[in-house]
Structures are given as C-alpha cells and as structure tokens.
C-alpha cells in the first residue's frame, strides 16, 4: 500500500501529466465536449413547451437557466475513467500503472481532474451567456446555498468518478464493461435531471429519482444554482448525496480489490 506522503508528493506531477494529456489531445477533447450538447436540445424542446404558458415553476427563462446550468455541471462533473480502465485492463497496460507507487484509484482521479481547467474554458462562456440571458437575479442570493453548492459539485463529481471506477473494474470479470456503462448512462440520462427537471416527473417517479444516485450527480447542483431549494431542503439532499458518495466509494474499492486478484496482464 503506497504511503500517504508519497502519494501527496506525486500529486502535482500527476496533475501536470493529466493536463498535458488533455492539451495534447485537444481536438479529441473538443469533440468530447461538443458531444454533450443534449441539454441544448432538451432546452429547445422544453422552451417550445413553455412558449404559451409556464410548466410548474418553469417559464422559458427558467428552462434556459436550468439547462445551461445542466450543461455546466455535466462538464465539470464528468469522468471518462470507465472507458480508460476498460481499455487498460483488456490490453494489459494496467500492469505499468500498478508498478507505480501510487494507487491507480488516485492516479486516475488526478488525471481526470487535471482536465477541469480545459473544461472551464467551455463552461465559463456558457455561464456568461446564461447570466446575460436570464440575469443575475435568477441565481440564489444566500451564500450558504452557494457553500452547499460547492460541496454538492464535489459530491457530484465523486459519485460520477467512483461509479465509473466501479463499472470500469467490471472489466476484470467480464470481457468488456462498455455495455454496463451504457446501461448506467441510459439510466443516468433519464433520472439525473439531465433531460427532464426531476420536479416535473410524476410524484412516484420523482420519489424514485430521489432514492437513486443519478439525481445527485447533476440534478441536485443544478437545482441549487437555480434556487429550487431552501436551506433545510438543501442540507437534507446534501446528506443524501454524501451517503451515495460513501456507498459508491465502497463499491468501487470492493470491485477493484476483488478484480485485481484475477488480473493476469496478458502480454503486458
């Protein structure tokens, strides 16, 4: 087990490597970013719905705020670790990673996080456009909500990363974990609030979405940004989110440790 101090010493280098990687493949990176335009499509649909009269508390202006926020949150909480792991486990190149004195779980996280500055380059203009369209008044004024939002963003990223890591670890047991990731993504699209604000679901589905992890990946931070929750509600949801972070962390660790035992690094 790599020690804590050696890991912290390696972190700056890992960040530099991750950032250099993201910059080197910037064309590919841009394609990735462009392929997350679904919130804009959903924005078009929902604002067509709200053209004559508002839906719930959503008028056209609220939908613009909601889906631009969704775009930003998805950008900043995404992780491609499951595809990366699937590739490295199948090709045996994971062996190289295992030789390094840093836990791959930390190394992957650092690499994924290191691309965040590049994502900000995309997210900030969208945020500016959003603010110009809907005005600053659409944002919550309470600083406590913004504090909760900061933690919710961290929690959202952690759930996404840990879940991807757990699913990526499935590649140890099966030929490929891509299919499992596809299923996860499908459920994520439906229940996270990415396509439909969770509060617009029928009551039964809404309750289910609050029990599933997906809402805490995207929907919850977005709801905070668009002022859907008071303090009380925000705290309760934050607690639920971090329970999911803990559960996903446990699942990721368990699958990783189990899987590693059967890893043979063929040809690596």
């Amino acid at each position, binding site marked *: 087990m790599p020690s804590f101090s050696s890991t912290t010493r390696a972190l700056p280098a890992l960040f530099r490597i991750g950032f250099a990687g993201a910059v080197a493949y910037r*064309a590919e990176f841009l394609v990735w970013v462009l392929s997350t335009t679904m919130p804009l499509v959903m924005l078009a*649909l929902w604002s067509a719905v709200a053209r004559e009269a508002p839906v719930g508390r959503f008028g056209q202006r609220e939908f613009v705020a909601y889906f631009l926020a969704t775009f930003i949150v998805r950008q900043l909480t995404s992780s491609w670790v499951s595809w990366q792991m699937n590739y490295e486990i199948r090709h045996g190149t994971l062996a190289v990673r295992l030789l390094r004195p840093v836990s791959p779980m930390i190394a992957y996280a650092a690499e994924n996080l290191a691309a965040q500055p590049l994502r900000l380059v995309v997210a900030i203009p969208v945020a500016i456009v959003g603010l110009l369209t809907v005005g600053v008044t659409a944002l919550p004024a309470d600083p406590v909500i913004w504090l909760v939002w900061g933690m919710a963003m961290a929690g959202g990223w952690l759930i996404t990363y840990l879940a991807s890591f757990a699913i990526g670890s499935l590649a140890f047991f099966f030929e490929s974990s891509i299919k499992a990731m596809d299923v996860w993504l499908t459920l994520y699209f439906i229940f996270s609030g990415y396509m439909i604000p969770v509060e617009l679901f029928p009551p039964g589905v809404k309750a289910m979405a609050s029990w599933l992890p997906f809402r805490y990946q995207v929907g919850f931070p977005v709801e905070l940004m668009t002022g859907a929750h008071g303090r009380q509600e925000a705290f309760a949801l934050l607690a639920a989110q971090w329970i999911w972070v803990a559960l996903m962390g446990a699942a990721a660790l368990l699958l990783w440790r189990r899987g590693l035992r059967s890893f043979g690094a063929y040809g690596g």
Partner: protein
Amino acid sequence: MKTLVRYARLFRVQIRTSALTLLQYRFDFFTEGCLEILWAATALVPLLVVFRYRSEVAGWSFGEALLVVGWFTLLQGILEGAINPSLTSVVEHIRKGTLDFVLLKPADAQFLVSTARFQPWRATNVVTALVIFAYAFHLLGRPPSAAGILGALLLLASSTLLLYSLWILTVSAAFYVVRIDNLTFLFASIFDAARWPSSVFRGFLSVVFTFVIPLALMTTYPALALLGKLGASSAVVAVAGSVVFAVLARAVWRGAIGRYTSASS
C-alpha cells in the same frame, strides 16, 4: 452494367464476411437487443413527461410526435447497424495506416470501406419502430394512406442517403485531424436532436439544426408524409437535397483520400 453486377456480387461477399464475424459473438445479440429497448425508452420518457403538461407541443399531438420518435428509432438502427460500424473502422484504418490494403484492392475504396462491417442485430430497432408506429396510429385513430406510406418510404431512402453522406463528410475530416476516434459520440449526440419534430427548434437553434444538419428532413418529413401533411414540392426538394449532398460528400471524400499518406511510409 457489368460493373454493377460486379459490385452487387462484391456487396454480397462483404455482407457474408460480416455475418460470419458476428456469429462468433452470438451472446451480444441479446445484450444489444435489451440495450436497444432501453435506448428507445430514453426517447420516450421525455415525450411522456412533456405531454403530461400539454396536449400539443409546437403543433404536434402526442400521437404525431410519436411518429417522429418512431422514425428516429428506425434511422438510428440504420445508422448504428449499417453506417457507423464500417465508417468507424475507416478512422481506425487511417490511424494505423492500414488503409493501404483497402486502397490496393481493385475496387472503389469508398464502396469497400462503406460495406466493410454490418451489425444485423440493430434490426431490433426496426421492430421497435414498427411497434411505435402502430401505437401512434392507434392513438390517432386512423391508418396511414397508401400514398403516405409510399412517400414516407421514399423519404426514408433519401434520409438514409443523407445520413450516409454526413458520415462520409465526418470521416473525411479524419484524414485532416488524425486522432478523433470518438467521432461516433459527436455524431450520435447531434443526431439526438432529430428525436423531436423540427418545429420545436425555433429561433437560434432552428438556424443551426435546419441548415447545418438537415435534421428536419430526416425524421420530421417522413412523419409528415405518413400523416399526409407533406406537400409534393417539399418531398422533391428533400430528395434532390440529399442527392446533392451525396455528390458533395463523394467529392470531399476523393479530395480527402488524395491527402492520405500511409503511416508506414
């Protein structure tokens, strides 16, 4: 005529090889089929939620909007079953420099790469689409007219041609910007906009979606044709447009392949 026969025979050989490859992965048939149904659900869920609040969106009733989703499902099946697999392998060929082996063969390179790989299990999409159509017309309370079906089939052919041409254009870009293996993701996500009737996209988005990528033509026109609401002139423009696009794509492909420098040389 002789070349036509030759290419028809070549086509049969290509199909047989990809079928043989697929028989090795029979289990995938089931998992892919199940996934397909899940994906179709992602297209239906927003529709169901939206129509909880309105009986009509952008001039489309639930039944009518379902028809658009049906065409979307069908075209997605064609895209992922017949177009995507072949053309993704082109990107791989370009990266590895193995396109040489394709270019050396005494047949048209575009034909060879376009027919290299098929995924017959995407036929599940066709079945899903037919179920959606049936349900939509059940809701509308009337069957489509014979002329409507004929028009819709014609438009299906032109939409397929258009999708294929768009893909050829995208793949041609791979000759210039080498490392773009996630092109499929980009393409699929842009195609996602075709889930909804084109009248949903007004204002800024309308300009992007109707002119840059002729989405309206691909799913909304066939749906309108089935409903008997599409004028003959729009249909002619749609078909002519897709032919122009195909010619353009062919020209771009030839230009791009001229720039190909094998990786090993």
